[in-house]
Every structure is written in C-alpha cells, then in structure tokens.
C-alpha cells in the first residue's frame, strides 16, 4: 500500500519537475524577447504623441514620478521629458477623473510653452458609441488637440464648443470630451507653470 502511494507520488513529482522544466526552458527562451517587446511597445506608444522624428532614445530614462492630486489625480504619474526643436517637451500619463463612467487615462505631450503635441486615450470606460469616440480607433477627435496651446487658466477657447471653446463635443455626449479637454488643459498649464518641480521628483522604478 505504502509502496503504491510512494510510487504515485514519485510519478507526480517527476511530472511536476518535467512541467516546471519545460516552462522554465521556454521562459529562458522568451524572456529576453518579451522584455524587448515591452520596451519597444512603450517607446512606440510614447512616440505616438510626439512629432515624427523626435529623439526617443533618452525618453524612458528621463522618467520621473510626479504626484499632484489637483492635476494628475490621486496616484503618482510618470512624466517623460525630451526635446523638440530644442525646447523641452513633457509626456505624462494623466487621468481625467470626471468621465461619464469613471476615470479616463490619457497620454499627453505638452511643451513648456503650453503647446499640445499630442494626446492619446490609454484606457476608459465611457459608453460605447457615445463617449468612446475619444479612442483614435473609433474617431480622430483626439487628434484635434495637436498643435493647440493653452496660455492661462482663463483661456476659454480651450474648451468644448458647448462651453464656448473650439473642441467639438459628440452628439449625445458632452461630459466625456469635456473631461478630456479639462485634463489636457490642466496638464499643459502645469508644465508651463512649474517645470522645475520635475527636477525634484524621484526617478521611476527600475521596471521602466
């Protein structure tokens, strides 16, 4: 009886070792590739919001974590910095907290002078067919930010049309574009007014 059990246990053990070995082997094979892919993807996503030809080599290493609950929401957000035409440009993963159904995660690139280089939606829960037009895959509305600039808090043109600004709202959905515009505007003003704060911020973890 005991032998029976121990035999089974042995087989189980062998199977487990074999399985782990296979998995570990495949992991060895693919780990490097996965890391590389992850890196590439990160860079290419950052590149989306920057003008073509921008130097991205130092982008990731420039990453710093910034916390400002007024502007970027409750959590620390990563900010990357680079230069376009000799002027500093910041790329930030910010949050628009007042979407229709929750947070809208955005990637925003702004210059120190308030110029918006590009905006992309990273994640959102907006109503399909209404608010989800902030995705580039659904609508190119998000491109309308490119080239716009914000100068000060009272800048009324940086708003949706319904509020007298120059961004379209979607039929049947005002809340979503309004939230996005507001978040972009806040981010632009932030880097315009306090770029120095970046220098004090801590660097991103090694994972990036």
């Amino acid at each position: 009886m005991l032998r029976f059990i121990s035999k089974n246990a042995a087989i189980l053990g062998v199977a487990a070792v074999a399985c782990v070995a296979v998995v570990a082997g495949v992991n060895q094979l693919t780990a490097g590739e996965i890391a590389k892919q992850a890196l590439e993807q990160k860079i290419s996503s950052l590149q989306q919001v920057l003008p073509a030809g921008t130097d991205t080599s130092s982008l990731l290493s420039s990453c710093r974590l910034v916390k400002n609950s007024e502007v970027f929401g409750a959590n620390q957000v990563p900010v990357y910095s680079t230069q376009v035409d000799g002027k500093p440009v910041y790329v930030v993963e910010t949050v628009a907290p007042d979407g229709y159904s929750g947070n809208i995660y955005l990637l925003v690139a702004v210059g120190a002078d308030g110029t918006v280089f590009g905006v992309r939606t990273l994640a959102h829960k907006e109503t399909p067919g209404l608010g989800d037009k902030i995705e580039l895959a659904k609508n190119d509305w998000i491109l309308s930010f490119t080239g716009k600039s914000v100068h000060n808090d009272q800048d009324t043109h940086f708003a949706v049309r319904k509020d007298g600004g120059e961004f379209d709202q979607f039929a049947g959905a005002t809340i979503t574009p309004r939230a996005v515009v507001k978040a972009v505007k806040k981010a632009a003003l932030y880097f315009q007014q306090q770029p120095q704060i970046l220098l004090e911020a801590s660097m991103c973890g090694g994972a990036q």
Partner: protein
Amino acid sequence: MSEFLLLLVSAILVNNFVLVKFLGLCPFMGTSKKLDTALGMGLATTFVMTLASLCSYVAEQWVLIPLDLQYLRTLTFILVIAVVVQFTEMVVHKTSPALYRVLGIFLPLITTNCAVLGVALLNINANHGLIESVAYGFGGALGFSLVLVLFAAMRERLATADVPKAFQGASIGLITAGLMSLAFMGFAGLVRG
C-alpha cells in the same frame, strides 16, 4: 469600508463575471437547469472562489514574487485551486455531512471553473491587496451565484415555453443569457473609478 462595498457592487453587478467578463460560463450553462442545483453550485463556488483568491494571493506574494518565478503563475494557481477544492471537499465532508450532500457533487466541477482561475489572475492584474483580493473573489462569486440562480429560475420557466425547435436547449439559453447581459448593461457606470 465604502471602497470594499464599491468593489463588491462592481464585481457583483457592474462587471458581473458571467455576463460581462465571460467567466464561468460552462457551469453557468451546465448547472442551471434546476433551481436547487444552481443554489448548490452557487454556494460551493462562492466558498471556493473566496478561498482560492486568498490562497493564490498568498502564493503569488509569498512564493512566486520572492523567488522571481512569476512565469509559473498559471501552473501554480491551478494547483493551488485544485488543492483548495480538495481541501474544501474534505473539510465539508468531515464537518457537515448535510452541507456535503448539497455541495459534494459540485466541488470537483469547480476546479475547471475558469472563474476561479480567472479571479486569481485578475487579482494579480489589478494589483489587489490581500483584503481586496478576497473581497473581489467573494464579490465575483456572489455575482456568479446571483446570475446563476436567476438564470436557473428563468430556465425552469423556459423549459415549458413553446420555443421553436431549432432554438430549443442551449440556443435559447444563450439568447436568454444575452438578454440578461443586455439588462445588466444598465448597471454600467454605477460604480465609477
């Protein structure tokens, strides 16, 4: 406290495992022919899922991460779940034969319920802490049980409806589930964040 409440509501209604996240569909379709069966299955799943999310969290945080073995996650979790199910079966068998009679036949089925493995993986993806993990597992299981029971009651009524021949059985079951899912869309946006 309200945070956990929201997490629960989210897992039960807004992001219902079955109707929105498509987890645990096989038992959903398979054990919903009778209300009693559905109740038993719901109960068993709730128990196992809560426990499994706890155990998988522990395994991840205390074993896999310290040893840098995250690539073994799937393998580990499925074994953890199998052990939890087995353990549950033994404990229930010993402590409450009455409960065992209700749950016994369902317990082995739960190992292959993808909602259980799903909740473990989702917990990792969402960076849930220990209590959050357990709450999420519990909420997800409650959501599963809720729609399972509702669906079972509907199917009992459906069994006697004059459904066109080609649609009888699984087909009308899925269409009903679709309409349920449609209704559950109403909860979208109930929990923000």
